[in-house]
């Protein structure tokens, strides 16, 4: 709903003679400094100055600052003090609208109109509500009434133009939008409508030509750049769109919405350092935009700044109430800082109103939950998603010849330096080219050496980031893919629902948020191994289990990994000191139960220390939160070092200071385990029953160290303590560990390639046999 359109602000003048404090507050408000106005108006209200207008203007100031709850309270006081004045009702209606409470908003706007039948902004706001509800004739009538009261107002002309477009009158809409742009050349909503109106009757190229002609005629009006950006974005050309947003922001630097649009485009392009200040500035200028808050939060999350994300969301929750999008994002933030139980609560709260996305959000945090993150619960959540989605499309036809060369599609945002890359590239390279051709459907552009390896082994490459699920599925079908492998799942850049369109006759889930069953009928197989899913686990999966002969991944150790060091506990001069445990997993995996187990280990080993290292620990509030949870678990802060993220090579080098890695649970380490092992650090782990709960078991079993895996927390503690007390044995394991891994199936790409080829062939043959 275009709230920004109807909620332009004008300070309500006092109707009575007032004292100096109140007048100063109003002046500050009029000058656009609501923060300065705040204490003055608060003092004025307390002193009884200005009648109810002190409270009203205080409410306006608070709204401008995005403090909606406080604004609501002040406006309610103003409504009580000024029962015949429309403005408190109108503003209260605006707040209700911002919070998505359409019914309440409508009642309040009507209340305002009762008090002032020609209240233009209330009419416009009601029109917007009617438009959002699809009542176009009613909306048009309301807009006409408002325009009768204020025929000069461009916002009303824009509202009329938008309604024209909704009625299918594209030319009238374009003319209306252009008329608004003539008066306000940098008006973002007018530019957007202009672009939409052009697209309603022209193809994108022709529409761009119209806008380019306008821009050539009037090169310094930001509106044409804005319209061009919209058209490029609609045509799936984000780089060209970004270029136009840049131009628009330079031409209209005072427009918060333009800054926001540029910020969002920069965020999309992965340029978060540039995007963050723009988004923050836009939020300051437009504090009532919920979407901006969520976008900032998402950006912080992608940047590994979950604590900052949480702060943004907590603030937004206070102002906007428990909106589903906020609850979902908050669940991710809470999870990422290690508050798994609260995360699941937040995710659960979003489910009733949040649709299928809320369920996806739920399954993304569920596997981390210390008690409820088990396989059955995950399966049930997956089933709930499947039930919401409904049946998948029918399978496409491909020539069903069991022995022919197969076209294998890879759907992923992780085809590069990403856990998916490190755990799949070597195995995919080893697939026999005579039997399989690989085709990438990349969901995130990546330029790095691992991405180059993927490019070198893929016969086809399709960048799909900005495409819809249906478009991606169509591209996969057009490439005549026989077997589609999903490498993203329910993860951040995953597009699992593409498989619901059934673009390939065989669809397989592999690495990439592979923490449990997907629950979806359109996923035929789960690529796995006998440790991840031993016999008897079938009922926990909606997919059939396609077990590889060894582990389910093939690790590609980076060439830049430094050599394995001597055991740190023995490396110092003189007597041996205590062992140093380490855990380089993200904080989402570090549950209270994990902290308790670690506390018991350190209690049994008075000399031992623990090092935690993960990006979110760069944030003070994340460290403080963890320290508090550590204290609750009895883990002594002075024996635990908390460190933030470092570049990958330095991260690997940091294992030089670790004697034993302690794996978290129930979501165990995946790539982290492989890296620790490659760096000579053995891993003590606790296996659960979910896929995520058995990653470490798979990797350790694959290199012949299954006896490092416990099955109960008690055994996990005892195992860690016993290993730490036998330094000679630990030193021996470390000395031979890289060679052991190097000789193991975990990194044996040719062997893995043979196993993968056989598994894919089996899946295909069964598909052929079914006809």
């Amino acid at each position, binding site marked *: 709903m275009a709230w920004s359109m109807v909620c332009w602000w004008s300070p309500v003048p006092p109707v009575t003679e007032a004292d100096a404090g109140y007048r100063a507050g109003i002046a500050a408000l009029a000058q656009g400094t609501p923060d300065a106005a705040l204490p003055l108006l608060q003092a004025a209200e307390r002193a009884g100055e200005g009648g109810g207008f002190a409270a009203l203007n205080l409410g306006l100031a608070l709204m401008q600052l995005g403090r909606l709850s406080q604004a609501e309270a002040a406006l309610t006081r103003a409504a009580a003090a000024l029962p015949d004045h429309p403005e408190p009702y109108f503003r209260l209606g605006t707040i209700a609208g911002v919070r998505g409470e359409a019914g309440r908003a409508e009642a309040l706007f009507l209340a305002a109109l009762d008090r002032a039948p020609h209240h233009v902004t209330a009419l416009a706001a009601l029109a917007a509500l009617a438009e959002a509800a699809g009542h176009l004739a009613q909306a048009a009538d309301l807009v006409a009434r408002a325009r009768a009261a204020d025929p000069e107002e461009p916002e009303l002309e824009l509202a009329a133009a938008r309604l024209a477009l909704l009625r299918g009158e594209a030319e009238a809409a374009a003319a209306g939008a252009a008329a608004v742009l003539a*008066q306000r050349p940098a008006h973002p909503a007018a530019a957007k409508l202009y672009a939409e109106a052009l697209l309603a009757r022209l193809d994108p190229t022709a529409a761009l030509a119209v806008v380019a002609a306008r821009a050539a005629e009037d090169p*310094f009006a930001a509106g044409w750049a804005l319209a061009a950006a919209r058209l490029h974005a609609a045509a799936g050309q984000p780089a060209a769109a970004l270029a136009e947003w840049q131009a628009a922001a330079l031409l209209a630097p005072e427009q*918060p919405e333009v800054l926001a649009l540029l910020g969002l485009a920069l965020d999309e392009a992965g340029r978060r350092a540039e995007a963050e200040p723009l988004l923050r500035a836009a939020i300051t200028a437009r504090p009532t935009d919920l979407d901006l808050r969520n976008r900032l939060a998402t950006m912080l999350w992608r940047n590994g700044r979950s604590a900052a994300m949480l702060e943004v969301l907590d603030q937004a929750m206070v102002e906007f109430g428990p909106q589903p999008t906020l609850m979902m994002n908050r669940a991710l933030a809470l999870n990422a800082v290690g508050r798994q139980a609260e995360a699941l609560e937040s995710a659960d709260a979003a489910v009733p109103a949040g649709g299928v996305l809320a369920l996806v959000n739920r399954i993304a945090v569920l596997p981390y939950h210390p008690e409820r993150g088990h396989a059955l619960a995950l399966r049930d959540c997956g089933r709930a998603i499947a039930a919401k989605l409904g049946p998948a499309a029918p399978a496409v036809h491909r020539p069903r010849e069991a022995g022919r060369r197969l076209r294998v599609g890879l759907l992923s945002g992780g085809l590069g330096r990403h856990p998916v890359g490190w755990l799949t590239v070597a195995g995919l390279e080893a697939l026999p080219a005579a039997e399989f051709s690989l085709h990438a459907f990349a969901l995130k552009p990546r330029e790095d050496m691992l991405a180059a390896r993927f490019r070198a082994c893929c016969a086809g490459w399709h960048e799909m980031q900005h495409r819809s699920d249906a478009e991606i599925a169509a591209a996969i079908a057009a490439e005549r893919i026989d077997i589609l492998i999903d490498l993203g799942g329910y993860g951040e850049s995953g597009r699992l629902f593409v498989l619901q369109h059934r673009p390939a006759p065989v669809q397989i889930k592999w690495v990439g948020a592979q923490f449990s069953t997907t629950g979806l009928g359109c996923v035929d197989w789960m690529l796995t191994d006998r440790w991840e899913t031993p016999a008897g686990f079938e009922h926990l999966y909606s997919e059939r289990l396609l077990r590889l002969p060894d582990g389910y991944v093939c690790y590609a150790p980076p060439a830049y990994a430094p050599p394995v060091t001597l055991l740190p506990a023995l490396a110092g001069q003189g007597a041996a000191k205590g062992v140093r445990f380490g855990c380089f997993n993200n904080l989402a995996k570090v549950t209270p139960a994990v902290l308790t187990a670690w506390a018991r280990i350190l209690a049994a080993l008075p000399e031992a220390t623990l090092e935690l290292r993960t990006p979110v620990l760069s944030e003070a509030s994340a460290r403080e939160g963890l320290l508090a949870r550590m204290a609750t678990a009895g883990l002594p802060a002075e024996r635990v070092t908390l460190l933030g993220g470092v570049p990958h090579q330095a991260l690997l080098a940091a294992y030089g200071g670790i004697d034993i890695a302690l794996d978290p649970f129930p979501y165990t380490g995946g790539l982290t385990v492989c890296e620790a092992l490659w760096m000579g650090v053995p891993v003590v782990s606790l296996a659960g029953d979910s896929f995520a709960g058995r990653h470490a078991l798979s990797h350790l079993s694959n290199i012949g160290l299954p006896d490092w895996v416990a099955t109960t927390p008690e055994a996990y503690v005892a195992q860690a303590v016993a290993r730490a007390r036998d330094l000679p044995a630990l030193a021996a394991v470390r000395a031979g560990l890289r060679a052991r891994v190097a000789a193991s199936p975990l990194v044996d790409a040719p062997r893995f390639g043979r196993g993968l080829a056989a598994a894919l062939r089996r899946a295909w043959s069964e598909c052929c046999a079914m006809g």
Partner: protein
Amino acid sequence: MSDRPAAMPAASRAVPAAAPALATRLLDRARLLLRQGRPGEALPILDRLVRLPGGDTAALLLRAEALLGLGRPDAAEAAATAALERLAGPAPAVVVPPAAAVALLLRARARQAAGSLDPAIDDAAAAVMAVPGDAGAKQVLGAALLEQQRFDEAIWFLGEAFRAAPEDPQRQLRLGQAFMLAQRHEAAAELLAHCAAGHPDLPGVVALQAQNRLLAGDPAGAAALVRAALGRGVVEAGLHSVLAHVLIGEADTEGAAQHFTAAARLAPRNAYLGHLAAALAGSPADMPDRAADAYVRTVFDGYAPRFEASLISLGYRVPGLMRQAVERLLPEVAGGAAKLGPVLDLGCGTGLVGAALSDLIGGPLVGVDLSRPMLEQAAAKGIYTTLHQAEASAALLGPMPPQALITAADVFCYFGRLELLLERCRSRLRQGGLLLFSLERAAPGEGWQLGPRGRFRHAADYVAGCLAAAGLQSLECREEVLRQEANGVVDGLLVVARATGH
């Protein structure tokens, strides 16, 4: 809520009152974006800036740079020309003012990127004359000369640029490449090793080192370098390409195919790699119907200096076979009673066919080849009336008198489909004129096939059909051994056909 900004920009269609400040802001941002390597984002800003009344030369120059960075050399050239006119007047004097050098250099780079090498060299040379102390100008001139295969001059200017900034890795790299192409392999090795030691992550440096070793006759050393780099996780088209060439030399077709394929995937716009990958992979769906010009040019440009020696060592027989065919079919010419008349030698290379026929011709002898270094070698023989750098089938469209003889020795093996080519040959022959060409032989019924060495093979029955369709009467189609190769002889066809009535 407070969406109405305090001050709206003026609604006027004229240039805003605050134009100077706005222009400065736009220019600064465009400059910053270009520095950050974002020409696409700079362009819409610059498009607007150049519309300011009177325009701004700086904006024109930046716009040329942005267009160059976006791979739009023609538009970049136009923008640079506009800037140059602003700086040096519409018809630049013989000596351009130093201030105009920057525009000249941009235009030189644009022209080089568009493949107009001579104009690029002219611009860069003018810039060097305008600012003799500018090492960057010498670098641009050297790079253009290098691409034009004028190695000695290229080395001179690239060397000057290198001496001005000996630690600049790009200057080291480019000079090293020039040494390599000029067959000064030791100098190239030294410079490239220095470059790689200081900048081990510089893209292309190891591939160039390896290529230099390969060209210097050390394939094992080249392979070792490549394999070490791949082992370090470096993935580049150039590395795979060098390794594939090494493997071809070892007759490891499968290995070569794998690495050419990887190289082609990493450099999808490289026609040379794409052609070889398709040739070796042998997949009919991916097979082109002729070799890309870039492929042929790349092959022969690199080959020219040692082409004849190499062919002689391979027992190359085609020019001799062609002379014998002429003598057989035209006894009056063989006996000296008549001369051939105008002769067109398609794919003349270093001029071996011209040399074999020279005493029989008695008319203009025109040579056509894609490779400039090859043409230079042919010119040195002093027997060709004219030499054109052109692709064979395109050259047949140019103006020329009706030809008595068209020869194509080892040329049609770079074409799969022959129909169009033979039609064009027919159209340029005079009545009764001869077309004489060699092919690599495919089995009857196979039509045409792309072989693992990037060349096509043709079946005699297919050729006969094409000749008839083109209005050419087949006089001879003899099975001949064309030459030796590492893994045996190359079986071929020598075809002679006569132009019958139009």
